[in-house]
């Protein structure tokens, strides 16, 4: 693949460089809050990247993606509460649980299409939400405080701000790399082919649901990792991370940045969360501006920010 110098690739390169150099800036300027803010942004970017894999490339509009954030988070939180602090146990459990959940709900949801798919994924996420709210032993509605972050036996210290930031950024870049490899593989081409014309793909002889399901599970697992990171970042996990508005946030990030572009969801997460942060500093009623802004973006900005940059290049 030859990378040409266009606005989209420049933006992607700037993001990678910016994210890598951010701790340096935070140290030099003494503004450690930036690091905290961006740790959160990077984690949500990872979740958005995973959602983009099924939504942007696979055409599966999941409205329940936040469920994996909660499942990954609760895997870490519950194990920590039961005295198992090792990240070597917690994280694999988080990933496997997310994968299993994705496998089950994917197998059921993928029988439906279009709006029905949006709604059934939403329903499953809401079920997960109520299960978490019913876990009286682990805080129920109020959530679960995690007193000790995942322990990686001295390999990496998650309580170190910079170390944790780089871990999250590493996971994000790993996720983007994985999506890039998938999208350009034979498997990824089949999934994208299914998005554009399912009938034709089936006529050639590809089992549509099986391909989609594998893609769905990969995305769910990746988002479970984001959930484990998020729980470690906030030292807390509650049912609220799985609430449907959270899934809505993730969708907004993907669409805002540009669906079906590799770095689009990262741009979307950065812009959405920074905007939320900046607007809430200006006014308590930040959503009063954010809401109509989203509407305008939908009405006039097709293909999100990355789409805009793409058009810029073409003139």
């Amino acid at each position, binding site marked *: 693949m030859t990378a040409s110098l266009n606005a989209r690739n420049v933006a992607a390169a700037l993001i990678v460089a910016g994210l890598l150099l951010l701790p340096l800036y935070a140290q030099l300027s003494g503004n450690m809050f930036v690091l905290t803010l961006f740790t959160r942004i990077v984690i949500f970017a990872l979740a958005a990247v995973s959602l983009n894999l099924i939504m942007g490339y696979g055409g599966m509009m999941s409205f329940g993606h936040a469920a994996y954030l909660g499942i990954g988070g609760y895997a870490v939180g519950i194990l920590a509460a039961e005295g198992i602090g090792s990240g070597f146990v917690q994280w694999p459990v988080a990933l496997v649980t997310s994968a299993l959940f994705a496998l089950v709900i994917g197998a059921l949801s993928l029988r439906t299409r279009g709006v029905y798919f949006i709604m059934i994924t939403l329903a499953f996420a809401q079920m997960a939400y*109520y299960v978490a709210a019913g876990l009286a032993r682990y805080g129920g509605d109020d959530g679960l405080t995690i007193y000790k972050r995942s322990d990686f036996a001295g390999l990496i210290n998650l309580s170190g701000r910079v170390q944790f930031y780089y871990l999250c950024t590493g996971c994000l870049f790993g996720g983007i790399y994985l999506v890039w490899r998938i999208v350009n593989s034979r498997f990824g081409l089949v999934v994208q082919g299914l998005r554009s014309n399912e009938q034709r793909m089936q006529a050639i002889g590809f089992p549509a649901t099986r391909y989609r399901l594998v893609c769905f599970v990969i995305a769910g697992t990746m988002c479970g990792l984001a959930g484990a990171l998020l729980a470690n970042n906030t030292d807390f996990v509650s049912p609220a991370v799985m609430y449907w508005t959270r899934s809505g946030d993730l969708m907004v990030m993907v669409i805002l940045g540009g669906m079906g572009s590799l770095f689009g969801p990262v741009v979307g997460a950065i812009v959405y969360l920074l905007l939320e942060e900046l607007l809430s500093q200006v006014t308590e009623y930040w959503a009063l501006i954010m809401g109509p802004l989203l509407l305008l973006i939908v009405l006039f900005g097709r293909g999100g920010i990355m789409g805009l940059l793409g058009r810029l290049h073409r003139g």
Partner: protein
Amino acid sequence: MLLVVEQFLNGLQLGLLLFLLAAGLTLVFGIMDLVNLAHGSLYMMGAYFAATFVAWTGSFLGGIALALGATLLLGIVLEFVALRHLYGRDHLDHVLATFGLILFFNDAVRLIWGPAGLALPLPPWLTVPIQIVPGVFYPAYRLAIIVVALAVALMLYLVVMRTRLGMLIRAGASNREMIGALGINIKLLYTLVFGLGAALAGLAGLMQAPILTVQIGMGENILILAFVIIVIGGIGSIRGAFVASILVGMIDTLGRAFLPDLLRKILSSAAASTAAPALSSMLIYLLMAIVLVVRPEGLFPANRR
């Protein structure tokens, strides 16, 4: 026995209320092909308008009539300013745009009415318990909700099935290009249908207001329920919405009321009291999942082409 009758009526009442919300949603969905997440915001606005106008006029019925008018107007303005430009776009665009509208409405309400909830007090003549069967009393207001909602449902049925407007609405649901080609002013029809849906949502919100508090975000939980209903019933089908509403209202209410006792028979009491609330909240989502797996188009798929 007494409890069963009461819970049965509660279930019916919730179901009918949900129908008012779901009917508007399914009409808008079926005819304009628009996914409107902000429908719950109209429900919330109905309740806030009612609380304000009732306090302002001092009359319960007068305030409610004003609130209904205001929600209708708000719906029409909303359609004219924002949603009209979304017709024919991707469903995902609808989700994003109307998600933005939810954010907007929630903060607008917080700005105007403040973060604390409002109460909508009932007039004395609606607070008396009424004896329905010998020995069984039921609050007059809840009974009034059932009667009003049933009347509205019947009216809706007559309008949609027996009038010229209803004929156009049904025609629009089955083939919107064709009725445009036959010279019907679709834009006006869409605005009317959206206003009607908004008024129904507002009615549901203001009727629910005296029972629950009027608060920000009150429309969000119930919006999800309404979506579950229209998906179970089959998108665009009013009959499906009615059946599914009653089903969901009953299952939700009866589940919450009787599931804890049922579970206690099989599980230990401690396990049952933790499992029951979660399980009863999940029941309707479970129902929806089962319906979609068995009949991916819902129970009563609207006839399309």
